[in-house]
């Protein structure tokens, strides 16, 4: 079985973000730390578990991102992926899902994959578009928010469970090749093995420029970014920890929310 996993590097969720007026985009500052998108970590873990069950499996990993994003490809290889590729984009700019998906689809077309796994969404842009778009480009079956995978029923299909509202699941067999977007909670991703990480660091990644796959103009564009509007009063309590605790108790008592 040949699997492609699409991964993305995102800022750590507590990284301070501000607006860069010069670029019209978001600035994370030089001290920001980055990690693999959590949804994608689960996708890599799922692929590695498939490889453990079916040892003739080959796992390729691809990312689209600036130079620093190669770290997440190597991390995926440290977790157990075989080969890595990096579609290089400009740093610190907004890259539209339309372009990313077209590039990944063009890359994936070079060889037949039985299964393509992506995260259900990225933690930073939260569009949930790249997976379904790649599937649409490739004419593949697509299942989003996948929360269970089982390949034991045969080589031509995959049993999936996808999460829908209210704790319900949609379950059944989907024919291969298929693209599944992976929801968190499907597994607990492993830490990369040091030996594999060292080996991954010594390997060359296949590097492709985003523009090689230029699909033309996106049908939508970023107009700008702003701070979100407050939907409630957002009163910040001031003072020492004890003073804040006292203020909170008074506020809750005034509103009869605590006795």
């Amino acid at each position, binding site marked *: 079985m040949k699997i492609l996993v699409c991964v993305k590097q995102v800022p750590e969720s*507590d990284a*301070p*973000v501000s607006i860069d007026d010069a670029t019209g985009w*978001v600035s994370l500052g030089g001290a920001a730390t980055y990690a693999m998108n959590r949804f994608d970590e689960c996708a890599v873990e799922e692929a590695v578990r498939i490889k453990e069950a079916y040892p003739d499996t080959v796992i390729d990993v691809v990312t689209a991102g600036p130079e620093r994003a190669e770290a997440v490809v190597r991390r995926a290889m440290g977790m157990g992926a075989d080969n890595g590729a990096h579609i290089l984009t400009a740093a610190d700019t*907004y890259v539209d899902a*339309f372009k990313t998906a077209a590039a990944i689809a063009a890359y994936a077309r070079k060889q037949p994959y039985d299964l393509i796994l992506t995260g259900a969404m990225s933690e930073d842009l*939260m*569009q*949930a*578009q790249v997976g*379904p*778009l790649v599937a*649409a*480009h490739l004419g593949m079956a*697509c*299942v*989003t*928010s996948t929360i269970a995978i089982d390949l034991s029923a045969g080589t031509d*299909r995959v049993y999936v469970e*996808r999460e*829908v*509202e209210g*704790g*319900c*699941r*949609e*379950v*059944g*067999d*989907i*024919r291969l090749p*298929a693209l599944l977007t992976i929801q968190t*909670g499907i597994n607990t991703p492993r830490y990369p093995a040091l030996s594999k990480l060292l080996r991954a660091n010594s390997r060359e990644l296949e590097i492709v420029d985003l523009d090689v796959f230029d699909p033309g*103009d*996106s*049908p*939508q564009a*970023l*107009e*700008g*970014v*702003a*701070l*979100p*509007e*407050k939907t*409630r*009063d*957002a*009163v*910040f*309590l001031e003072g020492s*920890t*004890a003073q*804040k*605790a006292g203020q909170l*108790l008074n506020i*809750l008592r005034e509103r009869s*929310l*605590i006795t």
Partner: protein
Amino acid sequence: MKGPITIIVEHVRGVVRPAAYELVTLAGKMQSACRVDIRAVILGDDIGGCAEKFSADCGVPVAVVSDSRLRDYSAELYTAVLADVLKRMEPSFVCVPHSSQGADFASGLALRLGAACITGVEGYHAAEDGMLFYRPIFGGKIRAAIRPKAATTVLTLQPGSCRPHTADAAADAQVDTLDVAVADRRWGELTTRPAEKTGVDLTEAKVLVAAGRGIGEEENLELVRRLAEQFPQSAICGSRPIIDAGWMPYSRQVGVTGATVSPELYVACGISGAVQHLSGMRGAGFVVSVNSDPGAAIFNASDICIVEDLKVFIPQFIQLVDEQ
């Protein structure tokens, strides 16, 4: 005149989901800015009665595609049938809920239509030179404005962003049944498995104390429990990362994929405030948030904001309650 705003009505076997009525509100507001008609499309099996009711309740003409193969949702069939219907309708905007169905088919449909696709929309701005759509990014810390650049735009609306439309004066239903060829499924067929019954009902609690990823360690859940004990009729709940980690059962998850709650008081401990969580607790009466990150998006959705390490703050608060 430009093409209509077309609402894709989400339903489960004829039961229309509240998200569809939120789209009617959005479309009505957008209509006053772009002066185009509003239409709706329902795909299903034997769905005429549902279409009549929706049309009468919302005063919107509904186009129906009825076929036994459309009894349950299928991304494959929805994409193919909607592409067919919408190519004839030439809408300016296609409005879909940002739900497990809507987010599943919207971007593939947009690609087929050569349309713009803007997902997780929370609001819009009618600028002189066209519409801009707002969507949260970076965990809700930033709001991006996206401009469509195609004749048609498919947008998915974040649940809870608009009040659902309520039927006012009953209008005459306008239902038009379309003759569209529906192919057999090639991908395979998924069936719905109902949720497991758990006995936990978060909607009954008057006070909810919620834990998020910011609590750090599982042992800090004990602090959250003790804080909840300070309030009568309280319960603890969590955001998705806490449930994914196995620290609480699924029945205690608040958010898009969990419960929607409206307690009198919601105390958010270490919750970042991603839109998926906010959708589940927007209806709370009063919201207090404790987070060590002063930029956390939860603060914009809070009445009282406390920038503190909850391992320090919660024991202090409990001690104060005990003393007084």
